[in-house]
């Protein structure tokens, strides 16, 4: 086992220390950190040995997993050449800021920073951290995050507990030029119910690497509504992955609102494992400037009578580009499933572009429904003329049409808190339409 390895092409040595029992082998590719640093980090935080072993195993996995070459179908549209791969890992990461009802703890709900959860509820963290295989398209990044996370959010809802209202977790850093790798766990025991928003904010300016990963475990009959509001800085490469496992008769809605970042390249993996499970996979993208957003989704239907519907809407301004490569996989044993993926892109400037690519892999004849819809186009000029002929100026007419376009997803957000925060973030890009100010007022009246 070598103690050091020189990375060709990047002109940087990565020191890999420690004995063979560390599980840290020779580096096959450079990254924002090295095993010695991670081990020191783990020791300094008095992490239990099982966690250090887990980090070590994932670090080994990271070393053994090649970074995407760009030849993969999922990676053809997002070259990694400019990924700031040598940005230093943010060790002194901020704790998650939490907003919730104090008496939740009395009901056994744990909603805390992931590092705090390791200290206070190690067995629960152990039961939910890094379960299963990596999200396939993002395997190397998934492994890196499980090895190198320094911050994150932990939400656990015990059996039968229904949490009212909306929990909010904010991860805010004023640094941009770093690699920030937080990990989030949302776990609902049988019959539990919870709604949570996670907001990610970082500074504009320098190039950085954000490698946030999410694991959602919905056990039998539970209901999870998870929203992720991405407001990262304008130099950030957001290379994240999310794994959702939907158990028997469980119901999960995820919403990813992508507003910030320079590049966003997110892998979504929705596993419909239990019989009768339901998932809604929602996305709202508002991008401008030279932003590039590339989503890879997999909806894998394993259990019978499962339902999974994906709907991503993108409003693209300036020279922004959105790619979407989404797969639905219906496994042979999955009977009577229903699945759909829809990706719609509104191009608000001649320089904006979108490439939605749906793939259906159906390995059984016994399905109720499986389909896709993909569109990309400008606002119909007649529609704009129609709105203008009613007295709305061109800008307000466009804002109203874009906001109306988003309503297909916004209307599915049951939490008014989440709706307001997401719309406020989107308004920075799409503006705010007076037609909807009034609708809000009417709702309140």
């Amino acid at each position, binding site marked *: 086992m070598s103690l050091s390895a020189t990375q060709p092409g990047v002109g940087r040595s990565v020191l890999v220390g420690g004995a063979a029992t560390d599980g840290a082998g020779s580096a096959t590719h450079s990254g924002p950190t090295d095993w010695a640093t991670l081990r020191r980090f783990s020791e300094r935080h008095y992490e239990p040995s099982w966690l250090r072993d887990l980090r070590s195993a994932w670090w080994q996995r990271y070393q053994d997993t090649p970074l995407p070459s760009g030849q993969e179908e999922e990676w053809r549209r997002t070259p990694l050449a400019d990924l700031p791969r040598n940005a230093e890992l943010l060790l002194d990461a901020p704790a998650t800021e939490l907003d919730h009802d104090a008496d939740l703890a009395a009901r056994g709900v744990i909603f805390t920073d992931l590092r705090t959860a390791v200290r206070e509820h190690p067995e629960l963290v152990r039961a939910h951290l890094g379960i299963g295989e990596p999200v396939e398209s993002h395997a190397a990044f998934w492994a890196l995050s499980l090895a190198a996370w320094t911050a994150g959010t932990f939400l656990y809802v015990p059996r039968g507990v229904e949490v009212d209202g909306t929990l909010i977790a904010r991860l805010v850093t004023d640094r941009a030029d770093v690699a920030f790798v937080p990990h989030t766990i949302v776990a609902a025991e049988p019959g539990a119910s919870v709604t949570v928003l996670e907001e990610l904010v970082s500074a504009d300016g320098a190039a950085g690497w954000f490698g946030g990963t999410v694991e959602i475990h919905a056990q039998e009959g539970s209901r999870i509504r998870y929203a992720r509001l991405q407001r990262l800085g304008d130099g950030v490469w957001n290379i994240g992955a999310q794994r959702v496992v939907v158990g028997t008769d469980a119901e999960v809605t995820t919403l990813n609102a992508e507003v910030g970042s320079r590049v966003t390249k997110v892998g979504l993996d929705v596993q419909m494992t239990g019989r009768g499970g339901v998932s809604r996979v929602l996305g709202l993208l508002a991008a401008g400037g030279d932003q590039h957003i590339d989503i890879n989704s997999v909806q894998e239907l394993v259990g019978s009578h499962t339902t999974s519907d994906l709907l991503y809407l993108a409003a693209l301004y300036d020279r922004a580009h959105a790619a979407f490569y989404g797969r639905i996989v219906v496994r042979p044993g999955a009977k009577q499933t229903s699945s759909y993926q829809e990706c719609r892109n509104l191009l608000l400037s001649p320089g904006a572009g979108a490439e939605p690519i749906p793939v259906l892999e159906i390995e059984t004849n016994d399905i109720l429904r499986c389909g896709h819809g993909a569109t990309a186009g400008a606002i119909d000029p007649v529609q704009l003329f129609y709105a*203008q002929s009613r007295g709305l100026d061109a800008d307000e007419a466009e804002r109203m049409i874009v906001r109306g376009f988003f309503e297909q997803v916004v209307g599915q957000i049951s939490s008014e808190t989440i709706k307001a925060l997401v719309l406020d973030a989107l308004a920075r890009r799409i503006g705010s339409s007076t*037609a909807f100010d*009034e609708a809000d007022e009417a709702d309140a*009246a």
Partner: protein
Amino acid sequence: MTDELVVSGLEVSIGTKKILRGVDLAVKQGEVHALMGPNGSGKTSLAYTLMGHPDYRVDAGSITWKGENLLGLAPDKRARLGVFLAFQYPSAIPGVTVASFLRNIYNAVHAPKPAPGGGENGQVPKYTGIPLAKFRRMLEEQMALLKMDPGFAARYVNDGFSGGEKKRLEMLQMAILGPRLAILDETDSGLDIDALRTVAEGINATLSPQMGVLLITHYQRMLNYVKPHFVHVLMGGRIVMSGGEELSHQLEANGYEWVREQVGEPEGVADEAPEPVAEHA
């Protein structure tokens, strides 16, 4: 100054195609003018040009409204001057409810114009629009008049509407905005007899001595309900014949072939005139 639309020598092209070849027309307040003509004669093009559709290029002539030149004004500015166009094929605006759309356009059209140089301290008080309760009452009254189900207000604008529902929504918008000049582009097309009567009653209820109407139609049947003071025939991009209400009956009886015999085949044969692209949207 009376509210008067004056169109004079209007020539309009779309792309390289000449569509209107010198239209002269004057609509005073309180007058209903019916504009009839075969397919492709330029009726919708005239309506779009009056409203300021950017694809219709005015090559010559003028359009004035209350003495003010409309050419060069954006459609929303024309709307705020009291001009309204009921579309033959109204657009859907998914995600925007009828109620919020109507209140928004009401406020846009009725917003007070900012005083020149701003108000005191340069501050213009924020216009908050018509109070919600007052607007709702007005909406309910107008919807009842058009025999519209109250649930209609919560639907998205023209999204999945039947032809008749779309035309009713056009009339509802006209009633809410209260224009001084209404251009109704084939508002009767696609309506069955009952819907036609309801829509016509809606038009008659909105009509006032202060309002001028340009009613574009293929058929005489609409004119049984909305009585025109003048009838014009547009053919080959020109108004080739004008008269009173009796002209619509002559057209009904004799067809446009009779007009061609009377005035001679106009240049720019009807069949060659392009349908406006937008109509197919």
